[in-house]
């Protein structure tokens, strides 16, 4: 093969076989993560060099068999079933877990029957040897007629040998392992002729899972369906029989190639750990301690670099503002683009820390136990054992939390988790809550030791949590699932995490966020900046004159005047116009147009609410919350003559911010994770609707 076409290699194997470790060993940093077209299954591709030429390698989702039930499995079935697919591999590396050959070989026998050129990579041979089991490689290689390479994906051993074998361009195996039953064989041959397929088994797959193969046109599917109907073909029965036949073959083979029978006692230490980890009391205690640690680290430790980034970007924006000449383009850079980029970069510490933890939990095998512990509770609410970590992470920030839902294989469970996670009160709501609670709730003690303000704060967190689980319950009924939810999964043996995998996971997730969600965040920041900086007519330009005229009789300091100008400008900007425009809509909630402006600008991020309120009430700096509170407390409602921020308005706003999806970064990440605008828009509508309703009830009830 000349260098005109790159060698395409696919990595296949069951989950926990070390596929990702091998992928990381082969590609190092030369990898990227994307989605398969049209679906949300993660596609990891990379490159490495063989004999000076580059090969593309793709890490396929971990599967046990070609028969597809989940999205992941359908992707693999489709890739191996479609020769014209851009992903169709030239060679397949099947990674087999040497401690559990039986399960690993099921897929291998299917790939051989498909006529694909396969290299068998035996991983974890050292562990198998420890358990008193060794394999006769020569016999194994002969029986399957495929090259066999022993590797240790964790330590990086055998990788060069594997590359050498791949460079020779292996041939498809000459073996046929499964013989298709006589009664369907004529039909299979007919399909093979019709579609010009390479092997009988490929045609058999067409018959077995016609609907999973998305590359077939409707006409082609009908053609296959007609044949299936003719012979009364029923996939379920045949698939079961095929699996049993394959396992019989594998068992016979293993009896020949395994030199010493395995000693089942080798898993004892793992079982001992399980006794504690899944214990009634200790299991949950360890789990909650772990959650607390994660929560603490995202909330507190990540705060240090986040503050640095925040201050750094504020200083940069300020410096540019002063050093660049005046003009809309320069303002766009210093007030729109730089803060917009800052708003993306600031999430990196939280994302990195959360994914360091999640990746360690997965690597060690603890994540599977979390699912095991929490599945029964979470399933009641339409969620999954794996929804726990994203939901709890949502208390820190919904963005890394939603990215963490990738560990949930079932699409419906994952979608529900994505939709309800933003209800968890994230750290950006905290400054908004702090100001509003301080403003409307008296600083009193109940029973002598409980602070009323603290109690309300806790209540808001609880309210968010309840909204999340009850929305999940609602979604469970509303969203129709295409796939059945299973919890048949391996509980892998405990082991030390592989730090290379942890590091690469952090880099992957951060890159995915910065480049995919970042684009949307930046775009919306610019739009919001335009809305707040430009206005209809020439009132914006005359802002300074007008304010000076109005304030003639007041003795304002230079700073006071500048603050007043900023407030006037905001009032007359497009954001101000929209604020006034939506006033009739938000009036039933107790808000005026000033609060309306804050609602619009805080769509960039909730904490912007505080800054906007400060600007609109001519307060300038937002560093110290004390003046904002005093200023807001003295704001008078012109209609009633009483204070603007009554208890009713305060509660109404608190409830609005608890429920509303006031965060464009979350919308951007949901769009990325669900692969389209459909779900983020539904979610935005649902959350805003609930926020409006809640705020309406609170205001009408209290005022």
């Amino acid at each position, binding site marked *: 093969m000349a260098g005109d076409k790159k060698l395409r290699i696919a990595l296949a194997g069951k989950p926990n076989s070390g596929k990702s470790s091998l992928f990381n060993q082969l590609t190092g940093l030369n990898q990227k993560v994307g989605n398969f077209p049209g679906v949300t299954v993660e596609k990891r591709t990379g490159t490495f060099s063989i004999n000076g030429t580059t090969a593309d390698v793709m890490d396929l989702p971990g599967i046990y068999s070609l028969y597809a039930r989940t999205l992941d499995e359908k992707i693999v079935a489709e890739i191996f079933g479609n020769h014209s697919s851009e992903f169709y591999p030239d060679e397949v590396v099947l990674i087999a877990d040497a401690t559990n050959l039986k399960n690993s070989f099921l897929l291998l026998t299917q790939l051989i029957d498909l006529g694909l050129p396969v290299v068998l990579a035996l991983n974890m041979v050292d562990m198998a040897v420890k358990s008193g089991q060794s394999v006769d490689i020569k016999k194994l290689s002969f029986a399957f007629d495929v090259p066999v390479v022993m590797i240790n994906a964790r330590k990086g051993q055998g990788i060069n040998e594997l590359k050498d074998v791949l460079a020779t361009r292996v041939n498809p195996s000459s073996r046929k392992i499964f013989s298709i039953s006589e009664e369907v064989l004529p039909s299979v041959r007919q399909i093979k002729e019709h579609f010009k397929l390479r092997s009988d088994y490929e045609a058999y797959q067409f018959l077995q899972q016609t609907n999973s193969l998305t590359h077939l046109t409707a006409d082609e599917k009908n053609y296959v369906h007609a044949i299936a109907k003719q012979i009364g073909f029923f996939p379920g029965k045949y698939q*079961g029989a095929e699996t*049993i036949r394959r396992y019989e073959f594998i068992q016979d083979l293993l009896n020949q190639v395994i030199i010493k029978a395995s000693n089942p006692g080798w898993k004892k230490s793992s079982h001992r750990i*399980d006794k504690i980890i899944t214990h009634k009391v200790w299991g949950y205690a360890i789990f909650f301690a772990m959650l607390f640690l994660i929560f603490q680290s995202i909330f507190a430790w990540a705060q240090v670099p986040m503050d640095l980034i925040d201050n750094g970007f504020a200083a940069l924006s300020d410096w540019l503002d002063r050093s660049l000449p005046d003009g809309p383009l320069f303002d766009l850079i210093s007030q729109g683009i730089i803060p917009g980029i800052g708003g993306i970069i600031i999430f990196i510490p939280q994302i990195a820390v959360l994914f360091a933890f999640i990746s360690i939990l997965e690597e060690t095998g603890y994540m599977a136990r979390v699912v*095991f*512990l929490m*599945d029964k509770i979470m399933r009641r609410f339409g969620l999954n054992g794996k929804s726990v970590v994203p939901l709890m992470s949502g208390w820190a920030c919904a963005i890394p939390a939603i990215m963490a839902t990738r560990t949930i294989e079932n699409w419906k469970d994952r979608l529900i988790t994505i939709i309800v996670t933003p209800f968890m009160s994230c750290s950006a709501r905290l400054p908004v809550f702090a100001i509003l609670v301080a403003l409307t709730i008296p600083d009193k003690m109940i029973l002598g030791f409980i602070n009323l303000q603290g109690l309300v704060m806790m209540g808001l967190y609880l309210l968010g949590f309840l909204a999340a689980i009850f929305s999940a319950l609602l979604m469970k009924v509303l969203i129709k699932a295409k796939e*059945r939810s*299973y919890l048949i*999964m391996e509980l*892998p043996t405990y082991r030390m995490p592989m730090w290379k995998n942890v590091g690469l996971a952090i880099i992957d997730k951060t890159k995915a966020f910065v480049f995919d969600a970042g684009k949307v965040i930046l775009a919306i920041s610019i739009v919001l900046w335009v809305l707040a900086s430009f206005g209809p007519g020439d009132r914006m330009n005359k802002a300074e004159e007008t304010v000076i005229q109005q304030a003639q009789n007041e003795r304002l300091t230079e700073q006071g005047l500048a603050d007043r100008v900023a407030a006037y400008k905001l009032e007359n900007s497009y954001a101000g116009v929209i604020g006034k425009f939506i006033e009739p809509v938000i009036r039933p909630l107790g808000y005026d147009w000033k609060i309306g402006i804050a609602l619009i600008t805080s769509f960039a991020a909730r904490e912007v609410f505080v800054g906007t309120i400060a600007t609109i009430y001519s307060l300038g700096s937002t560093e110290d919350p004390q003046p904002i509170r005093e200023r807001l407390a003295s704001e008078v409602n012109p209609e009633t003559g009483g204070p603007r921020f009554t208890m009713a308005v305060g509660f109404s706003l608190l409830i609005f911010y608890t429920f509303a999806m006031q965060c464009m970064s979350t919308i951007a990440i949901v769009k990325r994770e669900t692969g389209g605008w459909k779900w983020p828009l539904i979610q935005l509508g649902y959350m805003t609707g609930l926020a409006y309703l809640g705020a309406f009830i609170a205001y009408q009830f209290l005022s």
Partner: protein
Amino acid sequence: MLPGEVAVISGFMDDEISTKLLEMGFLPGSFVTYNFAAPLGDPICVTVSNLDLSLRIAEASTISILE
């Protein structure tokens, strides 16, 4: 079955789920060990063909066994 007990698999009662169970190694005639249940009673952990697996009670109850 009680934790610690071993049984032989005889067949399946649900066609849809049986293929998945077969693929994971629940083969008729093979031994299955019930290790322990989650603290809330569901799901459970079993060992079959040298592999520790977790499955929900509803899934496990589609497997028929010879005692």
